[in-house]
C-alpha cells in the first residue's frame, strides 16, 4: 500500500499545495472519479485549515502532517496538528436554513462538510494534538 506524506508549516497559504498533492495522489491509478476528487479537495481543505488554526503558536516550527494511504479499495488521508484537541460531537448545530438567524453564522460549516463529503471520518486525540482521518472509497474495478 503506497503512502505519501506531506509536512507543511502551519500557515493557511499552504492549503493550495495540500489540495494539489492530495488530489493528484488520489488521481493516480486507480483514480477517484472527478466528483469525488472535488469532495476530497474540499474535505481536506476544511480539515487542514482547522488543523492550521488549532496548531499551537509555540509549535509553529513543527509541521502539520498530511499522510495519504492509497489502497485498491479506498483512499485515506490523515491530518495531524499540534493543537489543544476538541470534541467533534459537542459542537453546537447551526440554525436551520429556514431560520433567519442562520445568516448570523458565518462559520461552523467545516466539520459537517467533512462528514458529508467523505465516506468515513474519525477524530482521534493524539497526546499533543488531533488526527483527523478521512476515507473515500474507490469504485470497485468491476463497476
Amino acid at each position, binding site marked *: 500500500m503506497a503512502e505519501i506524506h506531506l509536512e507543511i508549516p502551519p500557515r*493557511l*497559504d499552504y*492549503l*493550495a499545495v495540500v*489540495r494539489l498533492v492530495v488530489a493528484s495522489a488520489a488521481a493516480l491509478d486507480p483514480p477517484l472519479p472527478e*466528483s469525488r476528487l*472535488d469532495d476530497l*479537495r*474540499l474535505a481536506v*481543505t*476544511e480539515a487542514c*485549515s482547522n488543523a492550521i488554526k488549532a496548531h499551537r503558536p509555540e509549535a509553529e516550527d513543527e509541521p502539520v502532517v498530511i499522510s495519504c494511504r492509497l489502497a485498491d479499495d479506498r483512499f485515506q488521508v490523515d491530518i495531524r496538528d499540534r493543537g489543544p484537541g476538541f470534541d467533534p460531537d459537542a459542537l453546537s448545530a447551526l440554525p436551520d*436554513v*429556514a431560520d433567519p438567524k*442562520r*445568516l*448570523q*453564522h*458565518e*462559520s461552523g*460549516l*467545516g466539520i*459537517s*462538510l467533512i462528514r*458529508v*463529503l467523505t465516506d468515513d471520518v474519525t477524530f482521534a486525540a493524539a497526546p499533543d494534538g488531533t488526527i483527523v482521518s478521512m476515507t473515500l472509497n474507490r469504485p470497485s474495478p468491476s463497476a
Partner: protein
Amino acid sequence: MELEISDSDASVDTHGWTVLTATGEIDVAAAPGLREQLVELIEAGTTELVVDLEGVDFIDSTGLGVLIGAVRRARSADGDLRLVCTNSRLLKVFDVTGLDEVFTIVDSVDDAVAVAVDGI
C-alpha cells in the same frame, strides 16, 4: 482569487445592480479579500449586489461564510446579494450545506438583475 467590479459604463445593462466577478479559488486564504471588498461596497451604500461565481472553481466554508455575512448585510440595508453560478462543483457545495435555500442563486447576471428586490 481575482476580483473585478462592474463599471457603470459597462455594455451590459445591470439595472443599477453592481456586479462583482470573482475568479479562481475562494478559500480561507482568499476569503478576507472578498469580505473586505463586499463590506466596503455595502457600507458605501451599494446594497444591490450580484456576485458572479462563473469563474470560480473552488469555494470552502470560509468563502461561504463571507457570502453569508454579505447577504445579511445587504438584506438588512434593504438590498440583496445574488449569486450567479452554474458550476456543478459549487452547486453541490451550496446543496450539501443547505445554503441554496439561503442564497438566491441564478444562471446569469441577466437573471440576477431581472427581478427587483421586493419582487423576490
